[in-house]
């Protein structure tokens, strides 16, 4: 077991192929989870900043709860809680050209756990980015006659989202590392 002899197993049989396949699955989960978490995170951030008090408090509680729970707890909970029927539906609707790991209903638990947790974290990052803009930006947009959505889309979000790029990237790296956790519920 000295030097490179310890890595002899890598070239034996199909081991290298297995490792690369596993790597690919991690990558796929990461990409899908990143896209979904970014979308859900933006939605949550907008709800959190909404002028409707009920919506903003509800979104705040949601974000604070899911941000402060261990990701593994969420994944294991969903793994045990999501009913078999939902898993079966997932397996039915998943097209056959998707990779084998995605055909398993367990992916539903792993993926939704990753998205639940990371969308809450990203929502908080995006909220901070949006709120770091001077108030004058929103006021100027309104004064120019833009409505709420137009002001968001044309003035606030382009600037706010640019400010939160570094924090978002580091969270997405964490997400990519956290895709290892789905192995605990036996996604292989």
């Amino acid at each position, binding site marked *: 077991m000295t030097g490179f002899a310890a890595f002899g197993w890598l070239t034996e049989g199909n081991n290298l192929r297995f490792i690369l396949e596993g790597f690919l699955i991690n990558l796929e989960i990461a990409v899908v989870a990143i896209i979904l978490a970014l979308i859900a995170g933006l939605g949550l951030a907008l709800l959190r900043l909404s002028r409707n008090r009920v919506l903003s408090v509800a979104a705040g509680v949601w974000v604070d709860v899911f941000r402060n729970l261990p990701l*593994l*707890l969420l994944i294991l909970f969903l793994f045990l809680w999501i009913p078999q029927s939902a898993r079966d539906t997932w397996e039915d609707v998943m097209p056959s050209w998707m990779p084998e790991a995605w055909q398993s209903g367990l992916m539903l638990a792993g993926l939704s756990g990753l998205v639940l947790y990371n969308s809450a974290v990203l929502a908080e990052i995006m909220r901070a980015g949006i709120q770091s803009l001077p108030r004058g930006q929103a006021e100027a947009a309104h004064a120019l006659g833009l409505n709420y959505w137009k002001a968001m889309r044309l003035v606030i979000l382009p600037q706010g989202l640019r400010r939160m790029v570094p924090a978002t990237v580091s969270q997405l790296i964490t997400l990519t590392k956290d895709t290892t956790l789905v192995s605990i519920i036996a996604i292989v």
Partner: protein
Amino acid sequence: MPFAFVDTLTENFDEFLRGFGTTVELVVVSFVIAMGVGTLIAAFRVAPSPWLQRIGGLYVECFRNIPLLVLIFISYPGLRRAGIDISAFVAGVASLGLYTAAYVAEALRSGVFSVNKGQIEASLSLGFTYPQTMRRIILPQAFRTVISPLGSLIIAMIKNSAILGGSILALDDLLKTGRVVASRTFDVIPAFVWAAVGYLILTGLATVAIRMLESKYAVRR
């Protein structure tokens, strides 16, 4: 239904309490390791010698970019197969501590760089040695600016401690307790909700403590 919810806690209270205690123990021990090693590595990274800087950089890049679960696989089954008789607890806290240490080192390094360079020069020219400069001039100021990044690391560490109980180490922490209770009683939702409440108590307490420290020490900018 709500009573069944409470029953799950009261009937398994001792077990949940033990799990909570184990999680606290894991977090405290890992935190001590993370702070000790992290401070050392941060000192390496800002040391005047390029070799020490490289060693520090290598440590940070390795431990920050390897998922915690992989570290656990290396430190427990890996080391045991290599003939080192390591216990699950030691492997767990060492993995979590060394993993977090890399983040702590980065936070402290940015704190050190936030202290004006002139202060190092001034203290060296006053005759302090380099370690003395670090300990007496730079680090006390650096620690103040890094309270909030360290705080978020502590919260992340509390959450990461669940990986120790959920993975092959199977330490009896809060998550493992929730899982055991869930599979014994089939009350999946209450068991996990109570485990979640335990984690929320811990992260909530940490948040409050950090806010208090911040308002007491943090540098106003």
